[in-house]
């Protein structure tokens, strides 16, 4: 396994462990927030790029046509991390009730943790890859076949043609939540 996927896999595993410790009832609330964050960041991507690019040119006099990779990567990663942090630590949408008893409850916590791990680690990876790794050059720039394959399935790249898809699971979860 190449180093770049190891790095993001490690982040994903840490999120999975957090999910196991918190349990899936709490994790579902965070999942909804992450999915909404993904929808916003991908749906308004073009607008964000032009606004952030324009702001950089205005503030720092960056030449027109320059790709402000570092600023955009920092912006997207920072906003995403802030939303995820708020989803985990802030006052947020939560599901209440008792989880299913083990082993089903444990397996569900594992599955939801894996989803959150994929969404968080994959999105962070995507916003490094999309802007040509401005903060660090990968340890091995020759990605393995596996890494190159994985990159095509990173969350923001998944529904790049139609980001509204991200809202479908959110809508379904909200309906279940309202129904009680």
């Amino acid at each position, binding site marked *: 396994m190449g180093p770049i996927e190891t790095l993001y896999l490690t982040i994903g595993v840490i999120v999975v462990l957090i999910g196991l410790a918190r349990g899936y009832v709490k994790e*579902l609330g965070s999942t909804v927030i992450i999915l909404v964050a993904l929808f916003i960041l991908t749906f308004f991507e073009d607008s964000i790029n032009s606004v952030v690019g324009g702001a950089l040119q205005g503030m720092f006099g960056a030449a027109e046509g320059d790709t402000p990779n570092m600023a955009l990567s920092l912006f997207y990663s920072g906003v995403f991390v802030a939303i995820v942090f708020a989803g985990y630590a802030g006052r947020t949408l939560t*599901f209440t009730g008792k*989880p299913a008893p*083990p082993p089903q409850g444990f397996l*569900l916590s*594992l*599955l939801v943790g894996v989803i959150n791990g994929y969404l968080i680690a994959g999105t962070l990876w995507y916003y490094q890859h999309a802007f040509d790794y401005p903060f660090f050059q990968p340890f091995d720039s020759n990605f393995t076949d596996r890494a190159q394959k994985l990159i095509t399935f990173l969350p923001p790249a998944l529904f790049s043609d139609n980001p509204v898809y991200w809202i479908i699971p959110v809508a379904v979860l909200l309906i*279940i939540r309202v129904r009680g």
Partner: protein
Amino acid sequence: MTGQVAILISLFIYLTFFGWLGWRRGFTRELVVAIIALLGWIALEQRGDIIVSMANLMVAGLDFARNGGFTGNAEEAFTALSSAPAWVNAEMQADFLYVVWVVAFILAYLITGWAIPDKKSEKNGWAILLGILNGFFFAMVFLPSLGALFSSGDSAGDIDVNVDVSMNLFSLIGRGAELLWDMVLGLWGLISPLGSVGILIILTGILVLAAMSIRGDAKAKS
């Protein structure tokens, strides 16, 4: 391919069994067994020579007593003691340490079974994980010798009981992880024709399953 499927099914049955066993025995019991197995393994790998020296000393002490060390001529007994061959020599050291570790591991399993009451050993997901980890330890203990036992030999004398004294836990786990990864790739082969819609369906399905399984008051608070 067929062989791989068979190995994968065997691995699943094996892990499921130990996961179930872990859940039945509870977290505390499995944790104690895992700690003893792990610490014992590290101690024997790093400081095995001390255990060997202690065993040799004990056996030599018994010889000393038997040869009249406490009753007869002490000087002769001491000479016999110092010239006595080591009970565990360098060739046998690895096998001896392996046996010591196996005994400690099995004793830990048995003793925790009756020494820790059910109430103090909670049945939860961590117990399942520890059960699976202990399953890997069991595999490490028994698979090499069982493999040798069931390997085809013309006669019993031909069977090479090549016990894996290197106790390579990580390669065992690595091989298991490789098999699981192959299974994920296999599943991915089924999903990938559906493209991103397939992922969306699976993702939504898991989340709905989780949300629907919340019991009692499932209303949200904000």
